[in-house]
């Protein structure tokens, strides 16, 4: 009798294991890794170029996330531009038209700090609205699941590429928006908009102190540590001839969250004693507003990440011409003394040819993550790399390997001028864009589609069985942090 019971126990255990394993292997999803196409089932007929993704995670309630892309309002040319909202840690997403911009943003980034203690907010976004002129809105939502349109807190024109980071401190949110502000005098356009009161008021600080070629590059990227240290990386353009920017890669630092008397001047370069540490001097950065790397344009990929528990350690990544014959080459450098000195050469495994969209993040245990997209053999290959030892040894996962020549671009950017990576607890979470052909061989870690897709015939449908053309879609992913 006991033997029979033991047999059934073993049988049921095995059966349960096989069921779980079978479920986990649906669409080939690897254990602990999640890749999800964000397009909802009810928009299965869409064929937009949903490029340039971004992601915000509510850190105290990380089930709540907001993602964005160049996704137009699906039902109205005059309605609000939408964002994707997940309330189950990225398993499912809905599209909700809550941004203050009409129809479609032409730049959007966002963050969800936790200072104001809104469990489904606070979402702070920087959006560009594109009409005859380009206007920046800095806006807020206290509850992203409410579907209420975000409240615009600040508006101004003549700026480019807002990049939002935020930190919750003492019941309020501090918001840092990197912008290329053409209103700044003397061509010192690299700017950080700082709010220490949840977006109610902003102050703009130019962080460029050197002579420029009339302006700096578009990318101005803040990174914040929990101890109030704020780093900002930017391209200090020294010369520009229309196709190449001769640019310094500059990092500034502030130790009081940008609230002191001389904000962002803590780092001075030994060469000229001016604020802003020059990590790399006079890099040759190709600038092309036409398809150059495959169908993608190039010119401003830049990322910075600080160790959340050790603000002395900071990484910066960018792309330039690289070696002869390269189109666009990624590099990563590191500082372990609060940006005072930097590695003289690229960290191991971080000189990556013909690649773009670098995004760096550092997890609580010090593991650094790097997301990038590389053009290889006419395919866009999306990598997420992790390292515990400054990239001396790496774990390299390929999330997507898709055709680069299809679909034909509808506009630029094709995949985006950026993608994004965040560290949340024991996970790296991020977003990237890719050709959406439902082909499991394109997604080595597996994938889940919300939209109607037939993986056996590798075709999309509109939900009623009619075929839908391949397009660019945003994908969410999470991978466990390397212990």
């Amino acid at each position, binding site marked *: 009798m006991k033997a029979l019971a033991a047999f059934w126990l073993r049988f049921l255990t095995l059966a349960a294991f096989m069921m779980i394993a079978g479920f986990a292997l649906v669409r080939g999803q690897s254990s602990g890794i999640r890749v999800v196409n964000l397009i909802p089932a009810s928009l299965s007929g869409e064929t937009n170029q949903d490029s340039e993704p971004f992601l915000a995670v509510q850190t105290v309630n990380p089930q709540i996330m907001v993602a964005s892309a160049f996704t137009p*309002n*699906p039902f109205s040319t005059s309605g609000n531009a939408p964002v994707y909202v997940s309330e189950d840690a990225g398993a499912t997403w809905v599209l909700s038209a809550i941004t203050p911009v009409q129809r479609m943003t032409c730049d959007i980034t966002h963050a969800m700090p936790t200072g104001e203690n809104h469990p489904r907010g606070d979402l702070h976004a920087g959006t560009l609205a594109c009409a005859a002129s380009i206007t920046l809105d800095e806006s807020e939502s206290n509850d992203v699941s409410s579907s209420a349109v975000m409240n615009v807190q600040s508006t101004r024109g003549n700026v480019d590429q807002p990049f939002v980071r935020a930190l919750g401190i003492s019941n309020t949110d501090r918001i840092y928006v990197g912008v290329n502000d053409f209103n700044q005098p003397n061509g010192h356009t690299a700017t950080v908009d700082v709010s220490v009161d949840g977006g109610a008021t902003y102050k703009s600080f130019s962080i460029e102190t050197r002579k420029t070629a009339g302006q700096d590059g578009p990318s101005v990227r803040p990174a914040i540590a929990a101890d109030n240290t704020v780093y900002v990386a930017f391209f200090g353009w020294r010369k520009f001839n229309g196709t190449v920017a001769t640019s310094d890669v500059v990092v500034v630092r502030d130790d009081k969250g940008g609230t002191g008397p001389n904000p962002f001047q803590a780092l001075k370069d030994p060469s000229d004693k001016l604020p802003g540490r020059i990590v790399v001097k006079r890099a040759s950065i190709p600038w092309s507003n036409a398809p150059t790397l495959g169908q993608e344009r190039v010119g401003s990929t830049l990322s910075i990440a600080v160790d959340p528990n050790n603000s002395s350690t900071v990484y910066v990544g960018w792309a330039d011409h690289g070696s002869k014959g390269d189109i666009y080459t990624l590099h990563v450098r590191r500082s372990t003394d609060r940006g005072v000195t930097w590695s003289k050469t690229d960290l191991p495994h971080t000189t990556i040819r013909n690649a773009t969209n670098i995004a760096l993040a550092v997890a609580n245990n010090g593991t650094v993550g790097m997301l990038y997209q590389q053009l290889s053999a006419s395919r866009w290959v999306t990598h997420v790399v992790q390292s515990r030892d400054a990239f001396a040894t790496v774990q390299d996962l390929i999330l997507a390997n898709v055709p680069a020549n299809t679909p034909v671009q509808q506009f630029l950017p094709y995949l985006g001028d950026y993608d994004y990576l965040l560290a949340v607890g024991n996970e790296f979470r991020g977003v990237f864009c890719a050709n959406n052909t439902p082909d499991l061989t394109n997604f080595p870690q597996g994938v889940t589609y919300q939209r109607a897709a037939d993986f056996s015939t590798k075709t999309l449908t509109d939900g009623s069985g009619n075929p839908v053309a391949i397009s660019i879609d945003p994908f969410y992913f999470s991978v466990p942090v390397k212990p």
Partner: protein
Amino acid sequence: MNTSRFFLAGILGVSLLGVAAMPQATGNQVALIKQSSIVFAGTVSQLGATSFTGVPKSAQTAVVRVDSVLKKPSAVSLKKGDNVTVELKDPSAFQQGAQATFYTEGWIFGSGVAVKELGHEFKTSSGETPKPAGADEKTYQHAQEQIGDQELQDRLNSADFVVVGRVTDVHRWNAPKSATTRVSEHDPDWHEAVVEVQSVLKGAQVKGNKVVVRFPGRNDVAWVHSPKFAKNQQGIFCLSKDQASGVPTAMVGGRQVTVYTCLGHGDSLPMSDVPRVRSLLKN
């Protein structure tokens, strides 16, 4: 849309006529169709409920089973038998099993569709399937054409000039050195099209019969919906004075002339639309 008028109409309809409410006079239903992005006939299956997660449930939400779809954007997956969440304007007007045509705008898109009611029309007492404007498909199609006219009318009203013409030259515009130029991924890369005016549909006569139209040559996301022009292109041009490039004049034949832009989707129309535009401009 006036909620109280809806409510009153509902009470009157139910209590006096024994049939369900007509939300507005038929003549105004064209406007209702124009406002609506999704129109469908359906049956209320559950009040105070939602059809998929991610939609905030409230006393105003109801699950409605789709009986037929009358209007929807092509990207939206919606078909007979689907359950839709409708945020009702006045839930007290509905009971489980009620059948109506719902005039709605999109709200939330997830595993299903959620919409916000703009108006409704209950199924008639004779059991007919409710249709927009209380009429047949031809009437509905006619209403949709009128919507296009209304949008076009708005564009024509906002334009400084509307001309029929032919593009005789296209060239890149080089901003004068005095102009402030910025390098951005959203740089429009302004081009100029010289349009030989064949007739003026709105606005004063054009001196020299030529206008300069500045347009973005760049295929950046900021300008993807703006018309791009090619030599010998003929059509209708809805023109506004240039407030975008920073230099609102150009030299043509030794003369300084005002420059126009044509930036909106639909600001450039084919010649086949000339009779329609002429007709609308007479109104």
